[in-house]
């Protein structure tokens, strides 16, 4: 049996390709039931499967294929006409064969499923509709298909020869001529391709070293130049060997569309364009599920039922277009339907109902931004969603999967016209553009797809700066609060961070999270640049991703490593892993290229207890630092209390007084929350610091003096201090 394994694997691969072909052939046949060549082709495929399963002793598969073959034989011989029952049973057969093959692949045997009912159904379908039920078996159509012609099947199986042309006069010449695949391709082991790529990588390095040698000899220069050219071409070609046309994924979709449309009573025509667009084979598999999901969604929720379409003046048959094309170094796949579009108002309502935005914010949001809610986790998994938004079951999963391979998802929708969802994916994972950053004496690569922007920090603190509490440094980026991670400190490269003052913040976005990695600067071909010079593409390198071994990958910090042009090894940061370790809070996602959010959402609050025992909160974004003073350090100047800080003073405001109460206690130490603000900071004297908590509700306005509103924080209603009036009063 071990000897057989290789053959069985080959059989599985070949059969799975055949099944994909079968799906397509069946769909084509449904459209053109009198295509004799198509029937012959289907017959041959099923016959091959039957033959092979007999060879390997897969009896269930054999029996099933036999029943299918019998039915197809009758179809081919004109004893049967194609109807829904026949096609339905053939589709079921294809599905059953597929699941048996899957069982063989995973378990080595055919599984426990019983397919005898299906075999019987196939047999019944074969016998059920003879051309005439009358005793005379020969009808006027019979002579068109002379009996002897059916002799060929066994002999014709593996050959690439075109099927025997059926000289039936009434049949129009088939538009889709049988593709006589010439022997222009070979099967190559993926590992072999990988080692070729490795060797090419080596050559590239040697080439780079050669280039760095100074030689005045023109002959040497000429050779170096030629090696350079050839190496570049070789690298390009080698990368291409990993590529496969997206056709491998698209092939299944006609069947998907047919099944979904049939099950929900829609009429849908699928138009595929650009199926020859190529993608890395590892990515091809990764886009299969997300695309299937999008297509199902479009048919199920996008395209309207035929009567609705007709009533609104549209063609009865909906049109679903699947288009793949290359665009600026990436592959874009568009799933477009001409359905009813997404009901923006309902999405808005839903977003408000779920507490994602306030009603006022939602009403002011441009449609693009509203559509982003569809990608919110759980936004649409609720039962109401399908009826409410009419779209988007599991869109967050689609987005997560696509982003996992460094891609993005866009959505556009026009009411009454349709919806276009564009998936952009990189061409390959083996080679990707990355930002190489410096941190201490180390260098690290960050996948460019995750990099949002680079923000240089200035020593004089004039530009954007890192603020917030020591435990949770944040940076304000156009209205968003982004958590900050000091890479040197996090990785233990330096004991205390050295890049707080004049490093560069690399804003990265992974899944729904965004955070800033503070690094020293960028690496570029021109050497180490300080951040001001780097905002061009100088420090982006195209890197070849290499594995670092499962045990190191398990650290969850690095996805791999790469070798740079200078021969140095650089680790690629695992941003998802970093997120998991850091447990950063989610931040508001900035809609792509959207303007500044209309309402600044500060989602985390510092919760304190006042001396009088009230529970209050201050937006964390406004907190500069926490300090403790002794009662004696508080001085009174005029009617205000101040504390000395360095060479200046900080005004203190008592939290209770701001809220219109009077403190009765005067503890020996005062906890002070120093808050910043547009009009200069001040210190808020409180009794205790409770916690930093994320808001669990929207801010409820209130009429209490000094209170901006009430929020649920940590499950308790908490008053949020109105810092603006506090400053105004002071």
């Amino acid at each position, binding site marked *: 049996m071990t000897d057989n394994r290789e053959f069985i694997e080959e059989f599985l691969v070949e059969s799975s390709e055949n099944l994909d072909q079968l799906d397509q052939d069946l769909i084509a046949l449904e459209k053109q039931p009198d295509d004799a060549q198509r029937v012959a082709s289907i017959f041959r495929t099923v016959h091959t499967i039957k033959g092979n399963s007999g060879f390997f002793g897969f009896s269930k598969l054999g029996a099933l294929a036999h029943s299918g073959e019998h039915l197809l034989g009758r179809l081919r011989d004109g004893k049967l006409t194609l109807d829904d029952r026949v096609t339905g049973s053939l589709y079921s057969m294809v599905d059953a064969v597929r699941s048996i093959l899957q069982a063989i692949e995973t378990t080595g045997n055919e599984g426990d499923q019983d397919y005898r009912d299906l075999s019987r159904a196939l047999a019944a379908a074969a016998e059920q509709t003879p051309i005439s039920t009358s005793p005379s078996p020969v009808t006027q159509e019979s002579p068109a298909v002379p009996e002897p012609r059916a002799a060929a099947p066994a002999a014709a199986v593996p050959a690439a020869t075109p099927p025997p042309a059926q000289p039936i006069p009434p049949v129009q010449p088939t538009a889709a001529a049988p593709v006589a695949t010439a022997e222009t391709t070979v099967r190559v082991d993926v590992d072999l391709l990988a080692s070729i790529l490795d060797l090419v990588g080596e050559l590239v390095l040697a080439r780079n070293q050669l280039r760095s040698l100074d030689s005045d000899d023109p002959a040497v220069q000429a050779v170096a130049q030629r090696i350079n050219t050839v190496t570049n071409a070789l690298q390009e070609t080698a990368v291409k060997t990993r590529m496969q046309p997206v056709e491998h994924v698209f092939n299944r979709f006609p069947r998907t569309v047919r099944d979904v449309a049939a099950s929900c009573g829609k009429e849908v025509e699928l138009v595929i364009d650009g199926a020859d667009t190529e993608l890395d084979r590892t990515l091809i598999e990764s886009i299969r599920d997300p695309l299937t999901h999008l297509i199902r969604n479009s048919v199920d929720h996008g395209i309207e039922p035929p009567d609705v379409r007709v009533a609104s003046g549209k063609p009865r048959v909906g049109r679903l277009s699947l288009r793949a094309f290359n665009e600026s170094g990436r592959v874009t796949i568009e799933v477009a339907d001409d359905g009813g579009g997404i009901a923006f108002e309902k999405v808005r309502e839903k977003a408000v109902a779920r507490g994602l935005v306030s009603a006022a914010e939602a009403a002011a949001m441009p449609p693009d931004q509203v559509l982003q809610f569809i990608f919110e986790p759980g936004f649409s998994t609720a039962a109401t969603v399908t009826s409410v938004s009419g779209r988007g079951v599991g869109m967050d999963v689609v987005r997560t999967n696509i982003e996992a391979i460094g891609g993005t998802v866009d959505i556009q929708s026009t009411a009454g016209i349709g919806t276009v969802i564009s998936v952009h994916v990189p061409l390959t994972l083996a080679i990707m553009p990355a930002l190489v950053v410096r941190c201490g004496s180390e260098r690290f690569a960050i996948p460019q797809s995750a990099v949002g922007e680079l923000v240089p920090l200035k020593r004089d603190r004039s530009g954007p700066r890192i603020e917030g509490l020591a435990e949770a440094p944040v940076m304000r980026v156009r209205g968003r609060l982004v958590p900050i991670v000091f890479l040197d400190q996090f990785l233990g490269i330096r004991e205390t961070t050295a890049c707080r003052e004049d490093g560069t913040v690399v804003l990265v976005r992974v899944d729904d999270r965004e955070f800033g990695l503070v690094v020293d600067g960028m690496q570029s071909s021109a050497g180490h640049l300080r951040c001001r010079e780097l905002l061009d593409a100088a420090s982006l390198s195209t890197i070849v991703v*290499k594995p670092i071994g499962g045990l190191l990958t398990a650290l969850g910090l690095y996805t791999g*490593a790469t070798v740079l042009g200078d021969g140095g090894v650089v680790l690629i940061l695992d941003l998802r892993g970093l997120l998991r370790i*850091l447990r950063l809070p989610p931040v508001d996602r900035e809609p792509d290229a959207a303007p500044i959010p209309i309402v600044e959402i500060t989602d985390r609050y510092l919760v304190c207890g006042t001396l009088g025992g009230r529970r209050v909160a201050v937006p964390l974004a406004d907190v500069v630092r926490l300090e403790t003073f002794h009662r004696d350090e508080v001085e009174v100047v005029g009617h205000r209390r101040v504390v000395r800080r360095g060479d200046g003073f900080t005004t203190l405001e008592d939290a209770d007084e701001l809220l219109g109460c009077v403190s009765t206690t005067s503890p020996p130490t005062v906890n002070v929350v120093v808050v910043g603000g547009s009009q200069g900071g001040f210190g808020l004297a409180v009794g205790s610091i409770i916690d930093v908590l994320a808001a669990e509700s929207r801010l409820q306005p209130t009429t209490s003096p000094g209170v901006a509103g009430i929020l649920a924080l940590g499950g308790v209603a908490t008053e949020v201090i109105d810092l603006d009036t506090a400053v105004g009063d002071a």
Partner: protein
Amino acid sequence: MNEPPMHDFCTFRIGDACFAVPTAGVVEVLRGGHLTRVPLAPDAILGLLHLRGRIVPVIDPAIHLGVSRKTPEQPTHLVIALQDDWYGLVIDEMLDVLELPQDRIEQPTTSSAEGPGEALVGVFAAPDRLVHLLDPQRMIQSFMRPRPQTLERQAISHGRS
């Protein structure tokens, strides 16, 4: 089946002790080479080495084997293959390749197992020395066992800027 099966072993020296790994898994031996540090990796991982297009994690087995290296300045890397991954072991000196019948290999005694630990799978007597037979797979797995507490500590100290 009269003769016991023969096995090939690469023997090498770290400090004063001799060790051996099956020759079949040895890719090559190389001296020197630039190592790239892997922050937050287990202590035994000295860094990454670039070898013919592959990235090879380099491991210092000395501490785990209870010996100390004598030539920290001029490391020799013994590169071994485990499935698809290659790992480099830092050793002091490469010795000869020995062919041994299975029955010459003895079970490690309990006392010696305390030092080299679970990676030690046998002991045999070469003409002039005692050789400790290592299972590379077990050895590397025990060295590289991720230590979550390290990460936790870092995550915490990150907060405490």
